[in-house]
Each structure stands twice: as C-alpha cells, then as structure tokens.
C-alpha cells in the first residue's frame, strides 16, 4: 500500500517536471520566433525608409531636370505616377512592383538627360544623381537584408518543431521582396 503511494507521488512529480519543462521550452521557442519576426519587420521598415527617401529626392531631381529639359513631359508624368503608386502600395509585392516601375521611369529620365550636356555638368544635378545612386544602393542593401531575414524566419516556422505551433501563434510565411529580372533590364527608350 505504502509502496503504491510512492509510485503515484513519483509519477506526479515526473509529470509536473515534464509540464514545467515543456512549458518553458515552448516559451523559449515562441520568444525566438517572435524575435525573428521582429527582425523581419525591422528589415522591412529599413527598405520602406530607403524607398521613401528616394521618393523624397525625386521632386528636386525633376525640378532640376525640368529647368533644362522642360519638353520631356512624358518621363516626368511617368515618374509622378510611379511615385504615387509607391505611396499607395500596401503589400510587399505591390511595393516591389511600384519599385520596379519607379526604377524604369528613373532610368528613362537618366537616358533623356544624356541629350543635355549642360544639365549633365550641372553641379546640382551631379549631386542629386549621387544621392539617387546612393539611395538605390541603400535600397539594394536593405532589400537583401530583408530577404535574408525573411528566409531565416520562413525556414524556422516551416521546420519542426516550430511548424507545430507557428500557425496557432498567427505566424505565417512572409513575402520576399522579389524583383522580376526581366523588368529590371534596360528599359526600351523611344526617341520618336
């Protein structure tokens, strides 16, 4: 009789230990997932910042170019359109799309500029072009860091054991900031 009582006690202690251990293990897993998700969020806001910064640069750039090449209306309106689309973009894929649109509008602008040697040697324009190139590079860096963080987050929530409860925590796979390589290649410029 006494013997059996001890067995029960030990069993209860083991179960309690397992419960406590399991719970703290779960909390650890959960916190790690949340930290990973936050690093994705942080990386995304850096992408967003740099995209915004490029948008902010554009009015100055357009104003400077307009001073020399006022007749190039088409490219200015393309840029304005891309800019407003970027401002309205909600999801990662929409942002990526408007980013590409902006990219091609800007490269058309830079092609147009080729025809105005006075503009190309203008100090303001050179500075703005440096700012623009620097910002493009910052976007590229931020984009790569974002994609890396998405990769580790997605891999983690898809793999066992996190795959068991990631869905329950409302953690779903995040989208990569993908760029369609074809759309990125040199834009078609029509001088007619």
């Amino acid at each position: 009789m006494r013997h059996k009582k001890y067995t029960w006690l030990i069993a209860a202690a083991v179960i309690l230990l397992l419960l406590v251990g399991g719970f703290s293990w779960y909390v650890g897993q959960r916190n790690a997932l949340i930290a990973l998700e936050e690093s994705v969020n942080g990386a995304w806001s850096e992408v967003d910042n740099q995209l915004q910064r490029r948008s902010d640069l554009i009015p100055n750039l357009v104003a400077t170019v307009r001073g020399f090449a006022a007749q190039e209306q088409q490219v200015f309106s393309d840029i304005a359109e891309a800019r407003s689309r970027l401002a309205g973009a909600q999801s990662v894929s929409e942002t990526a799309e408007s980013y590409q649109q902006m990219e091609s509008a800007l490269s058309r602008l830079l092609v147009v500029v080729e025809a105005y040697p006075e503009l190309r040697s203008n100090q303001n324009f050179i500075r703005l072009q440096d700012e623009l190139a620097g910002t493009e590079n910052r976007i590229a860096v931020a984009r790569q860091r974002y994609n890396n963080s998405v990769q580790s987050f997605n891999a983690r929530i898809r793999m066992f054991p996190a795959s068991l409860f990631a869905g329950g925590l409302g953690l779903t796979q995040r989208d990569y900031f993908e760029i369609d390589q074809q759309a990125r290649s040199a834009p078609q410029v029509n001088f007619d």
Partner: protein
Amino acid sequence: MKLTDRSLLPVLALLMLIVAAAGAQAQQLPAPEGYVSDFAGVISADEALRMQTLIEALREATGAEVAVVTVDTFAPFGSIEQFGVALAQQWGVGAASQDSGAILLLAMSERQVRIEVGYGLEGVLPDGRVGAVLDQLVLPALREGRWGEGLVGGVEGIAGYIAAEYDVDLAQYGARAPQTATGRTGSSGGTSAEVLFFLLLVMFFGGGRFFWPLLFLGSRRRGYFGGGFGTRSAGGVFGSGGRSGGFSGFGGGGFGGGGASRGF
C-alpha cells in the same frame, strides 16, 4: 576493402568541396592590414604614412574611423558597391556605438573608386558631398595614374568634413574640404543660389537621415561595444592602443550602402 574505398570517394570529394567553398568564402574578404590596406600595392610608404597619421588624429579627435583599401579586383562580387558594403560591414569600420566609419576603396582592374559611408556619418557625408570629394580631390590624380595621391586627397576630404562637423582642426595633418563647401564653385555662375540650394538639400535630407539609424539600434548591434568619443581603446581587440595610437582593430560600425562611386 576496395569497395569501401570506392564508396568513401564521393564523401571525401564532397568534404573537399565544402572545405574549398569555405576557404573561398573566407578569401573573398581579406583581413585589414591597418587603416591603410594596400592589397594592390599602389601606395608609396610616404603616402600611406600620411593617411595613417591623419586617420589616427581624426579618430583621436572625433571617434570616427576611415579605412583605405586598394584591391586588384572586387571580383567575385558583382559591383564595387556590393564589395564595399560587405567589406565595410565585415571589418566594422567606425565606433560601434556611433557607426562612424568610412571606407575609401580603389579597384585597379575595374578602374573604379568608391567611398562607403557608415550610418553615423551619413549626415556629415551625404552622397552628394562624397561625390564632390571624389570629383575634386580623388579623380584628378587617379586619371593621371597617381594612385596614392588620389587616395590621400580622398582621406583629406573625408577628414575635412568630419573635422568641421566636430569642430576640430586637423588642417595640420592635411584635412581639407572640397572647394564647393566654402562657396567657390568650379566654373559656371550662379554660385550663391547653388550653394543655398545644396545647403537646403543637405539640411533636408541630412537631417532626416541622421535619425534613421537610431530606429535599428537594437537589430544591428553586435555584442561588442567600441568606445565613443576620443577613447583610445575603441578597437581594443588586439590589445595594443598605447599612447602612440596604432591600429588595434576597428570598432564595429555598421554600414547600409551610403556613399558614391566613380570610374576613372
């Protein structure tokens, strides 16, 4: 016996591949030789010393660090921008607490030069200014094949802007800023309007940019904290840091791709 040998072969081959890949990965980014890492061998001893003295004085006075790097090629990286940010981030140029670092990078076979600016210096050295430093102080010498002299000019320009920002005088070590900053532009007229416009631009963008890095303090920090203002032990990794200064590792600053590049 023979069978086991043969079955081991693919495993061995795979292992060797992995080791080779790891080796290649490590080879991509060389270790710093000091503030001046002349991997391409194009800088004279005198020029290297001048740059080193100026960079040490700059670090002593402001905490900012500058690295000068020459390479034969930035391959296997796709562009000097990619190589620059990878190298700068790997080395951690600049104090970690302020991300106050910059790298002046020269790639000989591609004939490209770049100044990579750390987060904390982006306010002092916006891309437009960096481009002006390259155009006015670096490219003229590089175009005539005087590599070391061009790099010295670049370091002097970078140091000139940082020194002005921190209100310290490093002119005795050669620090200077390009002409446009003081008002005299190269050739064309309309100077005052241009300068005013540029100043507004710098205030507008420089001001905003200064705060962005703060948003990511938590995520970008490495565990190690370098010293802040004028502390001699900022790098401290290799434990030297005596009165004579000397290179003792970089502080751990972060980079986000700011700066400007030029071909020559």
